[in-house]
């Protein structure tokens, strides 16, 4: 909401500077988001009169005007369509500087001399109309500096009013805050009103049929007004706070709203068929045409203002087209009412119509004081639009508002704040906010809450008021004591940290991607999952929560390849989601996944490199499991996967349960993600892994030295080496401690369709050194059994 500094000063004699006021407001909860200078020091800009208007000889759209400031006549070329003879206007003379920096100089426009400029509101930074000039009231004296019309240079505060503080949505509301902060006293409104018309009850009767939704409705009648443009000061004041000028009566209702905070509505009373206002709830399926010309279907029980017959306004939200104030309006019925916030919110939401008025009633208006703004508006209408004010107010107020009273103790205040405030300090703060306090005991009081503070209901609400006016800065700052709490970090968070440490050291950059994901790519891959579908997504590309990290990782691979990053090693450890069925929260779990494309080793001088392959990614995972101390797993064949090429991929299992996969992205996957080079992937299901994790146990180091023997075997090149090594391990050869593959070769030295594998076997006896004979025997035994199982030759 926008607030004018000069406007505040017209209510109290404020001595605070703009900066001080901004700081005080911000630090007490009314955040000043921006301050803008408004208007300017006008120099050489005066009121003037247009004496004659002639067509420009060389330009159709321009006119040549003779303008007088009383002392001199000036030739001025003007392009505004509304310029006319005898108008009172605003003339920027040669030498004037306009607020936006433009200097007015002698000029020749299309061959005609021009000595000055007739101004629009926009050129003066006072309004938004750019193409029409300001036309001043006929009674304006010419030759006066225009400061006399618009007032001094102003500052507009853009305030963030929190939703609990409807009372701050006006200049007087902000002045009440200033009062609490010690900047002055909010004057009680004293509105001198001349009631020269007939008694109101002879003119109009107000009746409320739904007092729960409309507990109070007050109206005044002003007869014989003249609808015309507002005077400049009103236009510019409204513009300062962001409201567009419409006509004098509508502008006055807005002006009063910005002063007092209460929305008013003006009806053309001559369009009422009965001398009545009847407030009622809408019938089921009832329709109404609002003044924006749209017919709206209303929810049942929406508040309708009627003339006893037809509806004339959708109460608290918008007037009707059938009772709108127009140029021809003579008699004004001015409404100031209170509507139930919940009812207004429901109707506004249902008809998708949010207005300044509906927003204020939704937050809660000041029920007790609705006649004050009504008087202020009536007085201004009489002043600016003429007419006679009927005597009295038609105020229908079936049940008087009952103020609540909130008890507060010194002890509970200090207990929550950590302060040492006394009762009198607390009381004076609450009273500065216009809450009526009564001391009830040595250390307690009762605060009576007026209707403008619907946010105050329980003692904590009062403590909050005390704290913010006392000042958060004045509340001490305690030392933090960690205490003897049992502190815990969950296993998945510790796991993620450990994974980050391993993979970054192994050259992987961590990525963090959006969880909101695109289902289309997964569809193309025929990935089988139960999507967590967002019913109101931002776009189709972000319509699900990702069920797997591979998609995001592949997106990032493509993104970086397109930016000439050639070697990509990335990993992510984050949450994935699958639906658990309607009405249930989805299943969510932590996944660790990575992608690797490009070189296996970093290219550089003396670093031989090659493309990453399957064994790099397999070795990586094996090493990771060593890093976290995990050995209860095995690799097994993968039968089909949406992302992976099964020829080049394996499953990671633990006790026959799948805990992860690794391998090559399939050609279809690479197609879908538009990646043009082999890409290797892995993932691990973290909760399953953590469920299988075992404790690492201490092992005595061996006491006797090992004996190593190498075996070079020539075998069919289709033989799976891992299977052969597994077979050797399964032989349970006594003292065989370890078997390692240290070379594999096929080529000239080996017959066609054969390969040579070099194994290193390590033997060890726990209690003594083994003899050569013992080792020879063991080797022979192993070889014999190998030979009986596989076709193989020993290679020298």
């Amino acid at each position, binding site marked *: 909401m926008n607030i004018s500094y000069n406007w505040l000063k017209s209510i109290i004699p404020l001595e605070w500077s703009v900066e001080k006021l901004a700081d005080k407001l*911000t*630090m007490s*909860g009314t955040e000043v988001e921006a301050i803008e200078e408004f208007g300017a020091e006008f120099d050489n800009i005066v009121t003037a009169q247009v004496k004659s208007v002639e067509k420009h000889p060389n330009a159709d759209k321009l006119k040549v005007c003779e303008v007088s400031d009383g002392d001199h006549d000036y030739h001025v070329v003007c392009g505004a369509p509304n310029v006319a003879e005898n108008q009172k206007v605003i003339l920027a003379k040669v030498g004037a500087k306009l607020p936006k920096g433009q200097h007015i100089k002698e000029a020749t426009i299309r061959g005609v001399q021009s000595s000055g400029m007739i101004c629009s509101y926009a050129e003066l930074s006072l309004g938004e109309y750019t193409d029409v000039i300001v036309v001043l009231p006929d009674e304006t004296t010419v030759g006066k500096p225009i400061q006399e019309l618009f007032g001094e240079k102003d500052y507009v505060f853009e305030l963030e009013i*929190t939703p*609990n*503080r409807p009372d701050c949505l006006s200049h007087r509301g902000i002045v009440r805050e200033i009062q609490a902060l010690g900047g002055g006293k909010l004057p009680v409104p004293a509105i001198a009103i001349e009631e020269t018309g007939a008694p109101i009850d002879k003119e109009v009767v107000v009746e409320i049929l739904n007092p729960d939704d409309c507990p109070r409705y007050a109206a005044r009648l002003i007869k014989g007004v003249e609808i015309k443009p507002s005077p400049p000061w009103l236009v510019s004041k409204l513009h300062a706070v962001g409201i567009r000028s419409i006509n004098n009566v509508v502008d006055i209702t807005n002006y009063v709203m910005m002063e007092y905070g209460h929305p008013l509505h003006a009806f053309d009373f001559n369009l009422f068929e009965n001398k009545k206002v009847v407030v009622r709830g809408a019938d089921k399926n009832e329709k109404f045409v609002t003044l924006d010309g749209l017919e709206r279907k209303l929810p049942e029980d929406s508040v309708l203002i009627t003339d006893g017959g037809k509806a004339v306004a959708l109460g608290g939200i918008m007037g009707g087209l059938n009772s709108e104030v127009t140029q021809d309006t003579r008699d004004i019925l001015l409404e100031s009412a209170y509507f139930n916030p919940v009812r207004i*919110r429901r109707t506004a939401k249902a008809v998708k119509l949010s207005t300044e008025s509906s927003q204020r009633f*939704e937050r809660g208006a000041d029920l007790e004081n609705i006649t004050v703004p009504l008087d202020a508006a009536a007085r201004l209408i009489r002043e600016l639009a003429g007419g006679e004010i009927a005597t009295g107010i038609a105020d229908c107020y079936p049940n008087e508002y009952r103020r609540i009273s909130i008890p507060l103790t010194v002890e509970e205040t200090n*207990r929550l704040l*950590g*302060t040492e405030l006394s009762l009198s300090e607390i009381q004076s703060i609450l009273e500065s906010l216009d809450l009526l306090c009564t001391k009830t005991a040595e250390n307690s009081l009762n605060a009576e809450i007026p209707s403008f503070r619907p946010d105050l209901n329980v003692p*904590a609400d009062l*403590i*909050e008021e005390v*704290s913010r006016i006392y000042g*958060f*800065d004045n*509340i*001490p700052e*305690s030392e*933090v004591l*960690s*205490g003897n*709490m*049992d*502190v*815990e*970090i*969950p296993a998945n*968070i510790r796991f*993620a940290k450990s994974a980050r440490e391993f993979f*970054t*050291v*192994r*050259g*992987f950059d*961590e990525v*963090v*991607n*959006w*969880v909101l994901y695109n289902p289309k790519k997964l569809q193309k891959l025929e990935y089988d999952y139960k999507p967590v579908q*967002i*019913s*109101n*997504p*931002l776009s189709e590309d972000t319509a699900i*929560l990702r069920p797997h990290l591979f998609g995001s990782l592949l997106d990032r691979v493509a*993104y*970086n390849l397109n*930016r000439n990053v050639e070697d990509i090693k*990335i*990993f992510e450890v984050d*949450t994935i989601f699958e639906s658990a069925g309607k*009405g249930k*929260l*989805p299943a*969510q779990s932590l996944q660790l996944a990575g992608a690797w494309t490009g070189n296996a*080793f970093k290219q*550089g*001088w003396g670093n031989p490199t090659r493309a990453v392959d399957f064994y790099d990614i397999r070795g990586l995972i094996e090493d990771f499991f060593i890093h976290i101390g995990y050995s209860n797993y095995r690799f097994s064949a993968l039968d089909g996967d949406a992302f992976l090429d099964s020829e080049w991929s394996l499953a990671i299992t633990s006790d026959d349960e799948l805990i992860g996969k690794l391998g090559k992205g399939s050609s279809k996957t690479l197609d879908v993600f538009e990646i043009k080079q082999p890409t290797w992937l892995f993932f691990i299901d973290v909760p399953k892994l953590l469920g299988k994790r075992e404790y690492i146990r201490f092992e005595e180091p061996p006491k006797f030295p090992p004996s190593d023997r190498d075996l070079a075997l020539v075998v069919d090149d289709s033989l799976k080496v891992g299977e052969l090594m597994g077979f050797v391990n399964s032989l349970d050869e006594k003292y065989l401690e370890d078997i390692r593959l240290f070379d594999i070769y096929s080529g000239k030295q080996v017959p066609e369709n054969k390969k040579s594998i070099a194994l290193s076997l390590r033997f060890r006896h726990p209690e003594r050194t083994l003899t050569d004979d013992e080792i020879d025997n063991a080797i022979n035994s192993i070889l014999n059994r190998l030979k009986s199982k596989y076709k193989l030759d020993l290679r020298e």
Partner: protein
Amino acid sequence: MIPLLKKLEELRNTAFEELESLSSKADFEAFRVKYLGRKGEITSCLRELSSVEPDMRPKVGAAANELKKELTEALESRLNEADVKAKPKSKIDLTLPGRSHFLGKKHPISRTVEDIIDIFYGLGFSVAQGPDVETDYYNFDALNTPDEHPARDINDTFYVEDGICLRTHTSPVQIRTMENKKPPVRIIAPGRCYRKDTPDASHAPNFFQVEGLYVDTNVTFADLKGVINVFARRMFGSDVKVRFRPHFFPFTEPSAEYDFSCMICGGKGCRTCKNTGWVEISGAGMVDPAVFGHVGYDPSIYSGYAFGMGVDRITMLRYRINDIRYLYDNDLRVLTKL
């Protein structure tokens, strides 16, 4: 002067002069023969000793032997020098760049979250977690958010189905934690949140927060100020100042927003802090008694504070990142330099 002594003196001058000019091994050998050899200059001088008067002979002989000794030593030392010079030049080049391997980095968001956890763990806070997809009850109702509150609107909050939304803050973890444990409760809850914001330089529809909660007997607003101050100093250094401004949240009362003095400009004013010298971090406050009501804590016995912090924002401030999209683009040209 004895002519032989004078000759020796001249010999000394020419010999030393000549020695200076020599460089090759052959030159040194020729020099040795010329002066020090059996038929060399000094030997021939000694032979002429007989022509000297007998009482002067020892003096001249000593001078000749002295010169021989000096020349021998000088030649020796020149030969050593030349020896070193003659060695082939070293091919060791320590100026080459070191061999580097692929090195990865943690994502800046992870670094921030890990650091926040470390700081609060040290202050006695456990880490709690809750689901990203929440019921309206945990995300709104139990946090005292009115039925008609705009935050519940489908324009602001993502829904999976009626009554089930993507959590808009990490605050539901407060409720889940308090439901399962009696006070004292001291936790932080890091996690993702979701709001229906169109992505731009400062908004992402999914982002990270850390929630904090401490409930016990006698927990005060002063304690909240204390803990946020410690956090600010540990995260951004001891120069950082903190200010609390009153604000409104349905689930805390009093409620505050807290700002850190701008670490970009040191509080003098810059674009990041919109010339205010302060950067907004997040919201905090004392747990609203209505929230305690939902979890069965007695507000007349217990009080507590809660705070949030925007991880993305803190990360951007730490690394001077001016656009949140850099955090989620995962452009390796950017990440590897952070």
